[in-house]
């Protein structure tokens, strides 16, 4: 049992059956080998952090989980059954929601149209079945407020939002739709202090509701604050997985940089990383 902290309350169940199991995933783009056999799983109620250098293959890996890419080799089990997500829509229908690194937002469309893109609420039946815009607006505003952002209006175009506001819309959307698994690819890269702590608290909250969270970050402190397990990728391979409480920030940081001369780097930067 690890100690409760601000962003981590209660341990996850280590014996629970994984929701998604990725076995020996390889992904090639032409002659580029982006993933060379990565295994990973995510259990209900845990936050599994995926860490690694730029270009390590983190985004590529989670994209095979969310149906954007099909793995060249390897197997994906969803709730124990072999599953291949042909499109992102398939994985969404299975209850997996993703915040992509590029956010997947349409700048010319309004916040609420973006929020519900692909999963619009409807009212009416048959021929009169239509997009329920009022419900969409209401939910968007209240979900955004929960994330600590007061939108000027639900019909504001996403292109006019600030970078962090845009990122928050993407996170709020994924949290709202992520019934079983929530994948966050560097969700806090553009966020302010208050919004970051909001996101970390949200991860802790959905985790306690039994959702499995995959959290990609370059920030060791953020990862350690919320994570139950930590898997480090390097050049398309896993360097290993550590459990909460079994690894120090320094060890994790060394692993993330591929164990290379970080000590030396740290010296020259005066210990700021």
């Amino acid at each position, binding site marked *: 049992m690890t100690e409760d902290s601000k962003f981590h309350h209660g341990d996850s169940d280590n014996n629970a059956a994984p929701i998604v199991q990725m076995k020996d995933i390889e992904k090639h783009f032409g002659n580029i080998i982006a993933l060379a056999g990565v295994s990973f799983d995510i259990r209900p109620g845990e936050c599994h952090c995926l860490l690694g250098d730029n270009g390590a293959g983190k985004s590529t890996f989670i994209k095979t989980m969310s149906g954007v890419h099909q793995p060249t080799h390897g197997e994906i089990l969803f709730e124990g059954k072999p599953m291949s997500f042909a499109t992102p829509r398939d994985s969404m229908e299975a209850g997996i929601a993703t915040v992509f690194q590029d956010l997947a937002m349409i700048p010319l469309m309004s916040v609420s149209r973006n929020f*519900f893109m692909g999963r619009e609420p409807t009212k009416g039946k048959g021929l009169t079945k239509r997009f329920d815009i009022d419900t969409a607006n209401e939910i968007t505003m*209240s979900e955004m407020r929960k994330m600590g952002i007061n939108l000027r209006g639900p019909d504001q175009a996403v*292109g006019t939002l600030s970078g962090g506001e845009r990122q928050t819309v993407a996170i709020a959307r994924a949290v709202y739709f992520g019934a079983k698994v929530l994948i966050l690819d560097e969700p806090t890269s553009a966020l302010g202090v208050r919004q970051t702590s909001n996101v970390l608290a949200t991860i802790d909250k959905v985790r306690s509701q039994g959702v499995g969270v995959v959290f990609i970050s370059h920030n060791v402190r953020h990862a350690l604050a919320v994570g139950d397990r930590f898997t480090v990728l390097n050049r398309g391979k896993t360097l290993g997985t550590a459990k909460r409480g079994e690894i120090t920030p320094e060890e994790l940081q060394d692993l993330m940089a591929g164990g290379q001369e970080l000590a030396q780097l740290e010296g020259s930067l005066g210990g700021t990383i």
Partner: protein
Amino acid sequence: MSDTTPNPVVDERIKAEPLISRLMKRPELGAIAGVVLVTAFFLITADSAMFTTAGIINFLTPAAQLGILAIGAAMLMIGGEFDLSIGSMVAFAGLFFGICVMVWGFPLIVAIPLTFVFAAFVGAINGMIVIRSGLPSFIVTLAFLFILRGLSLVGLKWASGGSTQLRGVRDATENDWLAPFFSGDAFPGLFAWLAEKGLVETFKNGTPKVSGMPVEILWFVVLALVATYILLRTPAGNWIFAAGGDSNAASNSGVPVNRIKISLFMVTACCAALVAIITVIDAGSTDARRGFQKEFEAIIAAVIGGCLLTGGYGSAIGAFFGSIIFGMVVIGLTYTDFDQDWFQVFLGGMLLIAVLFNNAIRKRVTGER
């Protein structure tokens, strides 16, 4: 919302936005302003006959024929693609329809649905090639512009035994119960009644000068309304805007982008088929030049209506008014002392102004990024 915030907080960072500036953000605004301007222009310069019932119907008829194409083109443009083959598609669908009626002797109830299925199939091929190859639709449909036009010529010669015209469609369809939906005038009773009440101009003997509303105008209005409803009030509409705005982001968000785009190509081709059916029955014949250069006019009408060439933004109502501007200018010039050939100058000028205007609007909407 009211349960969490009893009196919603007014954000101090928003200036009260005047109605004008809110309207400025609507894509169809430019086209509506254009209609007002063009109307004013012709009210001053043209013979007053232009704005009688007969005169209005006179310019609305070509506007409607173009508008049916323009609404399809606008939806496709919002979805992020072009179709340069719609003009040729009018000729090709007209040929197919002519063959159904003249060579195979089908009644309209068979010939019309068959023509739509055929057009949708050709549209799907267009869309499939664009999606599968990832090539710009501009170049793929440019190829089809020539392929379909050429096939129409070859097919006409085959069907008519050497000529490039297939005649006799009028006689073959005259007594078909479905014909009134696709040709002639609607509401003759209404117009007769209006004439009786003295609300429309009549001939000396009391019959109205205009015997009814040409059916293509009805189709035009209904299509504009249906397209607007789909775009603004249905999930499919949201998907069309998303697919055109950023197809990768849309697809990652679960929008079935390929399905949407192929369907839009099919809808556009069906719009061309509708124009083909209406004009072929009306003229009683089909020929290989039918729909010549209509693809450009339809795209221009869509752009005047506020569609961005880059996709993801636009409106069917805009294309509706864009087409009306078109019809007014083509026909209106004959009511004035101006040389007819000013039409082309006018057209190019309108297009240029519309594109500049739309560009400014887009910057407003996206916050000048």
